[in-house]
């Protein structure tokens, strides 16, 4: 190897990187952002391993719910519920791992959940004298619970990166500049990109869902039409976000960073893999501003609870509102070719 040539190339690349202030700034800013975020999410003495729904059935006892005799066990969160049915619903949907009704000395486990089995074992001594029940109704596997999250996450990556990177590459290679020289308007171009990606995302999601359903026979209590609508609204919102992120930049490195900062919080906080039940309320409020949260929650409610579109109107409205904001901002900021 010719060291002189190697060093010249090494130096040139370093100069290029350090002179690209947006990429440099991003590389410094993103890890700090991640550290701050994780330190907030996982702050405290340690992350809880299990979540137990604690039901005090009388009003007087509800005021003293935190003084339960189980609470001295470390790494287990106790979440207070006022009625047993709500808590049982959460248990059957794998949101929590055990339900204890203190006054009536009863507890419920989810036979499909490994965590439910383990937390029952942890409390085997203390649960002596309590009557054991299993959650009733059709059994929901973790696979059924996690399915909407995985599908939605796939839609998110396809929407954000499929639109964001492509537009920035078009801008960088002057494809957009060539299109600008034609009578094609920015609105026509952007809406064509949006609908093309929406078609691709929905088609691939339907193929993935149908294929996997054939293999795993997914639980489905609601209507496929409602699921399609919430899926389409979610994808539309995420594509709009991708368009907004890609509205001006010419740098693929910067856009990579911006897409990561958009997708990572959603992947972690939108209940794709685990529920935010019992998480700090500030975190839940933050998660409410993420489109994936509403896509996942809406789809999950349709699949697991049999909710209709009117039942999930909050999620539908949130997605519509966010789409309107992202599209308006994206259209306002859109540039065919960022001028020198």
């Amino acid at each position, binding site marked *: 190897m010719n060291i002189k040539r190697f060093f010249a190339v090494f130096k040139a690349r370093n100069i290029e990187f350090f002179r690209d202030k947006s990429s440099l700034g991003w590389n410094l800013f993103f890890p700090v952002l991640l550290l701050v975020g994780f330190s907030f999410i996982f702050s405290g003495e340690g992350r809880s391993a299990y979540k137990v729904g604690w039901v005090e059935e009388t009003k007087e006892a509800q005021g003293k719910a935190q003084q339960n005799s189980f609470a001295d066990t470390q790494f287990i969160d106790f979440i207070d519920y006022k009625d047993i049915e709500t808590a049982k619903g959460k248990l059957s949907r794998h949101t929590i791992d055990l339900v204890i009704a203190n006054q009536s000395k009863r507890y419920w486990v989810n036979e499909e959940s490994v965590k439910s089995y383990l937390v029952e074992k942890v409390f085997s001594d203390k649960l002596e004298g309590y009557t054991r029940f299993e959650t009733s109704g059709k059994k929901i596997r973790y696979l059924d619970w996690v399915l909407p999250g995985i599908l939605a996450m796939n839609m998110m990556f396809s929407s954000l990166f499929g639109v964001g990177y492509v537009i920035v590459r078009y801008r960088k290679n002057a494809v957009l500049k060539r299109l600008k020289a*034609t*009578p094609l308007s920015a609105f026509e171009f952007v809406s064509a990109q949006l609908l093309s990606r929406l078609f691709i995302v929905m088609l691939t999601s339907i193929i993935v869902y149908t294929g996997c359903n054939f293999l795993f026979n997914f639980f489905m209590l609601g209507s496929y039409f409602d699921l399609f609508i919430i899926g389409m609204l979610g994808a539309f919102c995420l594509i709009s976000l991708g368009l907004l992120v890609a509205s001006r930049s010419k740098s693929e490195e910067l856009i990579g960073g911006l897409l990561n900062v958009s997708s990572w919080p959603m992947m972690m906080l939108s209940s794709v893999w685990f529920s935010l039940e019992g998480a700090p309320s500030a975190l839940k409020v933050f998660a409410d501003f993420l489109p994936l949260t509403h896509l996942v929650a809406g789809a999950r409610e349709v699949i697991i609870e049999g909710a209709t579109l009117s039942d999930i109107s909050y999620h539908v409205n949130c997605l519509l509102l966010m789409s309107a904001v992202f599209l308006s901002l994206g259209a306002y900021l859109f540039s065919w070719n960022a001028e020198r």
Partner: protein
Amino acid sequence: MSVAICVQKLTKQYKDVTAVDNISFTVEQGHCFGLLGPNGAGKTTTIEIMEGIISPTAGQVIYKGKEYQGKKVDKSISQQIGIQFQHTALQDFLTVKETLNLFSSFYQKTLAQEQIIELCDLKDFLNRDNRLLSGGQRQRLLLALALINDPDIIFLDEPTTGLDPHARRNFWQLIKNIKAQNKTIILTTHYMDEAEQLCDDIVIMDQGKIIEAGTPQQLLNKHFSEVFIYLPAEQVPSVLVEQNQWKKLAGRIEITSCNVEQTLTLLMNSEVSLAGLHVKSANLDDLFLHLTGHSLRE
């Protein structure tokens, strides 16, 4: 002749760089108008302002009496102009035919596809992926896209840069065919032979300013009255070279003469063999060197 485009006091400033500095000129209908100059002279910036791709800092472009510029570009004008950029990419994975179809769909009026395929000689690679085209094929496709709406005005920004001599000459022929249809062509180039072959009128730019304008012949006549005569050095006696203050260059003698007949008579009277004699008149390269003190390709 009617005026197709009138550029008035155009200026483009990028922070502390003045790319175009208060330039004005007119382009006549049916002419091929050349913007010449070295890299960085401001040719591309000027042409992109004329195309409505970038906005000027000051000044205006009047197209057939109608003002348009930059971001406020009137999209109806883009129906009537054709553009071939210096640097542009085409969408990956599309074939030549699909690309023609895509661009055809943008315009109200288009040439018949068979006509454009024949005009730009695309038929041999119509079904080829854009990514697999050679340089010459790619430029022909880009020219076809510029012509697809049968425009009145065609902007060609350094269309033959990077092409081999054969492909360049083929491309010139295409441009001559288009010119024959009374289209107005605005061409930027730093190849002077290209400008001499194709342009009716030229402006020469340097550092954002117009340093000369006119027809190529007018400009050469204005600045050069002499021709250059070259002979192999061994055929010319040293005494004759010194007497007449001729230049000795790499085995050749360069004679600068305002009267070729008189110089040839002198050589013959001095019994100098005229074998290998070469006469060259000044060209635009020489003109640029004369005007700016540096070569066009610097």
